[in-house]
């Protein structure tokens, strides 16, 4: 029997150890996904709890056709989408404070952080499905068939979403760099 199904059956029978084992098995990866979607600990932690609560109080509706992991992620992503809807879009994130605090404020780091900020802004401009697909493929290293299952779409759609996301991201970044170049040239001209 599938290890997760065994844990689920034992959890349903009231075994606390099985419950804890299931939570421990998925809490870190699920938290990372949720954090990437909402960009702050408070919301990610809250969503993590809500996801598990919804899953464990609704175990009877888990049809065991897909894996428990996929089902859990589907619940989590749907809950996170509600947060997204409430805000209008995913968080516009700021420069990573941790890096700045830990490292000397060299020009390189600031440039690097500036690029990362640009990238995050570009990501936030992507349609939700494309952004999620890109996140699953690149940041979590998932295969396309797994992404298709979580996102409840066909394999072809998952690949297309990924392709469009990358193309759009490149375009946004190119435009941003072009704007920056133009700004720098104008600044240099004014100095002269």
């Amino acid at each position, binding site marked *: 029997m599938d290890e997760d199904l065994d844990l689920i059956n034992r959890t349903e029978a009231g075994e606390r150890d099985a419950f804890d084992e299931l939570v*421990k098995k998925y809490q870190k990866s699920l938290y990372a996904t949720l954090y990437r979607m909402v960009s702050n600990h408070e919301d990610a932690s809250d969503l993590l709890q809500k996801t598990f*609560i919804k899953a464990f109080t609704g175990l009877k509706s888990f049809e065991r056709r897909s894996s428990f992991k996929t089902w859990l992620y589907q619940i989590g992503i749907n809950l996170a989408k509600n947060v997204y809807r409430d805000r209008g879009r995913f968080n516009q994130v700021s420069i990573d404070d941790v890096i700045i605090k830990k490292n000397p404020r060299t020009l390189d780091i600031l440039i690097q952080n500036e690029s990362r900020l640009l*990238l995050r802004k570009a990501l936030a401009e992507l349609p939700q499905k494309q952004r999620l697909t890109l996140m699953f493929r*690149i940041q979590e*290293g998932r295969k396309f068939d797994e992404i298709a299952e979580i996102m409840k779409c066909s394999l072809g759609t998952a690949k297309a979403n990924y392709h469009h996301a990358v*193309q759009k991201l490149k375009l946004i970044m190119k435009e941003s760099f072009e704007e920056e170049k133009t700004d720098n040239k104008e600044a240099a001209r004014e100095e002269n």
Partner: protein
Amino acid sequence: MTCSNKDIGKLIPAFLAQELERAERDIVTEHLESCSDCKMELILLRTLAAETVPDPGDAFWEETPGTIYRAVQREKARKKRFDLSWFAGRISMPRWALTAATVSVMLTISLLTLLSVQHRPDSSRSPAYVFSDDTMTYGSINVATLSQDDIDSINSWAGGELSSIAQEVEPVMAGTRDTDIYEELASLNASEIDTLASTIQTWEEEG
């Protein structure tokens, strides 16, 4: 300029995740040297992949299962309370109405059971015997053909009938047992004693 080599684009995520075989890896590496578009894509994706999620710390991970467990128990209890209150809300009628409803349901069930017992023998499966209010007539019954349901019906009917007969007979039997024969004889008058004596004499003569 956008790269037109879609095959390389498909390989870039796997290249990034170091999942490619050596031959494929060499092809991508060679392509990247001459294609700025794919190089930019790789840098973008590498930056994206390097975006780390801050670790909330060991204490958070250790506490989470317990926190979730308690929250799940609370949620289940809340749902249960909701179910009970829903039910209670629907039976919050006056006590007399609830009693009347309960009695009605019981009477209905009793009546249906009685009708079922009385009408079952009329079915096409058992045409040989018929129950009426005070008699039972029957033709030839092959007991072997009776089903368990038929036997149960007969048992139930007979049990009911015998019970009512027993109730009628019991006081009489009890009364007979409680009467003293000497008191009976003492209460007879002279004429009744003569009649009794002649009757006994006749029985003795007849043997």
